[in-house]
């Protein structure tokens, strides 16, 4: 026996192992695929609704809304000017519709990730056992190459918006769960003791102390989630998600250099806008940390 060759399973055994796994998953797909699809119907409707809303809104109003939101969140004129310039340029270069589609899927993905991620993060912060259980799952979600979990998702739900969205959420969910958990666990134990001493219930503690104090951390999680979902749009376009990803994909397969570059820059522009706006907002909600005596 030589040590250079690993004593692996026989080829036949390996094949039958894979076959049996594939088969059982295929059976599962046939059995539950349809009901799963129906389960995700509300999500699909939400996606279609938001996409239609963004596409049917006249572009000047759309730009005005984005600029207003950016100002409300960041209170910075520099960012507002950047938003208007970026959107104008995107529109002028013929990428308006794709950009709206991408914005729509990012918005839906972020909302869903927040709705799922924050409760999971809170639950994790309250129980060490749960944390030990969920942490490795999050590791898998973040590091497993996205193509791998695209396979079962596509097998179950086919090609389209919903599987694309699920793939994006799987990739983008971990940071918000982790940072919610971390934010709550990092709350000063002295303050928690004070809350207990004044007779807070668990809920009162969560609402009055833990969540507000974890907010900056949670916000960093939201920011990360947005960034990660943006980075997934190209991969998601492979399973039929429309938006800025599709022209990039087309550009790769046909070697259209400028097309890829322009759409790539559009994605970057959206990412920078989201990032700056959410960071500024995050900084504003931390004002109480400044020790300045003039209020």
């Amino acid at each position, binding site marked *: 026996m030589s040590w250079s060759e690993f004593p692996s399973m026989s080829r036949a055994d390996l094949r039958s192992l894979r076959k049996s796994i594939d088969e059982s998953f295929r059976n599962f797909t046939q059995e539950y695929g349809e009901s799963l699809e129906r389960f995700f119907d509300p999500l699909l409707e939400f996606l279609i609704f938001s996409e239609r809303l963004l596409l049917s809104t006249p572009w000047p109003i759309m730009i005005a809304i984005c600029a207003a939101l950016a100002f409300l969140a960041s209170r910075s004129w520099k960012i507002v000017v950047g938003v208007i310039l970026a959107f104008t340029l995107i529109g002028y270069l013929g990428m308006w519709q794709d950009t709206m589609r991408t914005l729509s899927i990012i918005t839906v993905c972020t909302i869903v990730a927040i709705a799922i991620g924050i409760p999971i993060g809170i639950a994790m912060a309250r129980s060490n056992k749960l944390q030990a259980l969920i942490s490795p799952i999050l590791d898998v979600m973040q590091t497993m190459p996205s193509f791998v979990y695209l396979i079962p998702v596509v097998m179950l739900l086919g090609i389209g918006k919903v599987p694309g969205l699920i793939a994006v959420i799987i990739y983008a969910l971990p940071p918000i769960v982790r940072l919610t958990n971390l934010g709550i666990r990092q709350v000063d134990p002295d303050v928690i003791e004070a809350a207990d001493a*004044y*007779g807070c*219930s668990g809920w009162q503690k969560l609402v009055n102390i833990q969540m507000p104090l974890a907010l900056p951390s949670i916000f960093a999680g939201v920011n990360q989630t947005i960034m990660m979902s943006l980075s997934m749009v190209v991969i998601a376009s492979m399973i039929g998600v429309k938006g800025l990803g599709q022209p990039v994909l087309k550009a790769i397969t046909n070697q259209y250099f400028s097309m890829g570059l322009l759409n790539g820059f559009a994605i970057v522009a959206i990412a920078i806008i989201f990032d700056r706006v959410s960071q500024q907002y995050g900084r504003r909600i931390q004002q*109480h940390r*400044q020790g300045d005596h003039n209020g």
Partner: protein
Amino acid sequence: MDKNKQPKIQIVNLSKVFGRSPKKMLQLVQQGMDKNELLTKHRHVLALDNINMELKEHSIEVIMGLSGSGKSTLIRHINRLIAPTAGEVLVDGENVCNMSAGQLRRFRQQKTAMVFQNFALLPHRTVIDNISFGLQIQGKSDTQIKRSSYYWLERVGLAGYEKNYPAQLSGGMQQRVGLARALACDADILMMDEAFSALDPLIRSDMQDVLLELQRELKKTIVFITHDLDEALKIGDRVAILNQGQLIQQGSADNILLHPADDYVRRFVADVNRTGVLRARSIMDSQLQTSPDFSNTVVVQEDDTVREVLHSMLSADSYNALVTNQSGKTVGRIDSEMLAAAVNN
């Protein structure tokens, strides 16, 4: 003080062991194992060792000890932030250790309020919203919360700072917020865990005066933890001294200074400036109620400190002082030799 009345807080046979299996370790202690052996052999900490103690209503009860003496652990048993390994804590005759989670919450909301060494204010809330925290948890109406919080804001001398955040205030001001937050709850028992220890000496002395002045009016039961003997003697109606988890002595300031229970206490009180603590009542001779036939005899109150007596006698160039009680009756006499003995002791 009414001797028949039950004490506000009774601590009965209270022991606390920290570690993995505290109950089992406590049995070893009861069989005679000492604190150090428990720590080195079994890695368990005996924090409190069979404490029995009564804390009286309407008075400032100081619990004093150095770090590691168990004083902070002891005060946390009163509102069960820490649960005992053995023993009972009775507040108004009710056993805190037997309360359900809901009862305990209501008890903490209504009966106790706590002030912390590191202030433990809510950093994301303004001063006024910090003061109203306890009331909000109690579920009081908005108008009541507002009225009460602004009242206490003013009483602790922070009017005008209501919209500031804690991080914008100095330590002394932050602790005023902590005090206002506790007083706003209108609880009978005020628990102060090294409340002034983190403040610098001048501010600390100010805060002690604020507390004494408020107490004259409020008559709460105040449990005050400190490691500073001067502070203990200044504000305490009674002082309890803890060492290594055991209660060594409990009594009035004069009692502790004049009759230390053991060497530990004796060493402790050796450096104290007695003249500012001892009162005329404790050093006078109550057998001698008339002045000897000297011309210049001064009259002092029984609550006057030795320093005040000394000052009165020196300024009148007198060697004798008659001590009177609040109704003006003569209760004893002090001469210069008694004074000298009290100062040098």
